[in-house]
């Protein structure tokens, strides 16, 4: 299947099958690392990654927050999705407990994006694929 222009389309992976997206994390020096993030509309956080990765990509610390996974450390991180021309510094969180659970779905996952992140764009899926498009993109 050929993705539309300005779209990222990924087959589900993991057990149970999970939608996911690939983003670039950019550190303050401009070094980029691509990571796969599980898409979880049940999460009220923009992005959650491991504590070491949060520290590596941190621009500034931000307030932490208590959750059912324990305390999540806050920090502002730069996230890019070149296919969508998406490039923003956003409020991220770090938690190794969350990442341990994320990797039970699939070891490739370096974290998760929650509903607030997905609401910055259009997102959807069908039986085989999960996709994201820019906020202003036309429906399929």
């Amino acid at each position, binding site marked *: 299947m050929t993705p539309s222009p300005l779209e990222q389309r990924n087959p589900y992976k993991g057990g*149970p*099958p999970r939608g996911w997206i690939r983003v670039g994390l950019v550190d*303050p020096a401009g070094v980029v690392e691509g990571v796969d993030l*599980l898409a979880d509309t049940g999460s009220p956080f923009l992005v959650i990654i491991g504590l070491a990765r949060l520290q590596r990509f*941190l621009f*500034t*610390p931000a307030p932490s927050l*208590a*959750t059912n996974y324990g305390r999540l450390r806050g920090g502002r991180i730069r996230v890019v999705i070149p296919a969508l021309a998406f490039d923003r*510094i956003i409020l991220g969180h770090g938690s190794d407990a969350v990442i341990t659970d994320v990797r039970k779905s699939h070891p490739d996952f370096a974290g998760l994006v929650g509903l607030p992140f997905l609401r910055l764009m259009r997102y959807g899926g069908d039986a085989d694929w999960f996709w994201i498009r820019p906020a202003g993109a036309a429906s399929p």
Partner: protein
Amino acid sequence: MTDEQRLEANEAAYERLKPMIDQTYPKGWFVAVADDQVVAAAATFEELYAALKAAGRDPREVLTAEAGVECPGHADIIGLSIRSGGEAQA
């Protein structure tokens, strides 16, 4: 002071200063807290970050927050903890 101690001190200062921050700065402005006070503020994070660098501060040694944004005391990550079984499992 270790990084951990600095972070805890800045978080405690932010909690204490939050009512003043919300009253002083327009909603959505970004503020930087360090040394028990607001050390910089700007309309965007990028402007705040540039101001911190221009002032010779290490941005990793301050805490930044948005004015007027309420943070819940506790949040649940629901979807991640759900494991499918039975009919729901493909």
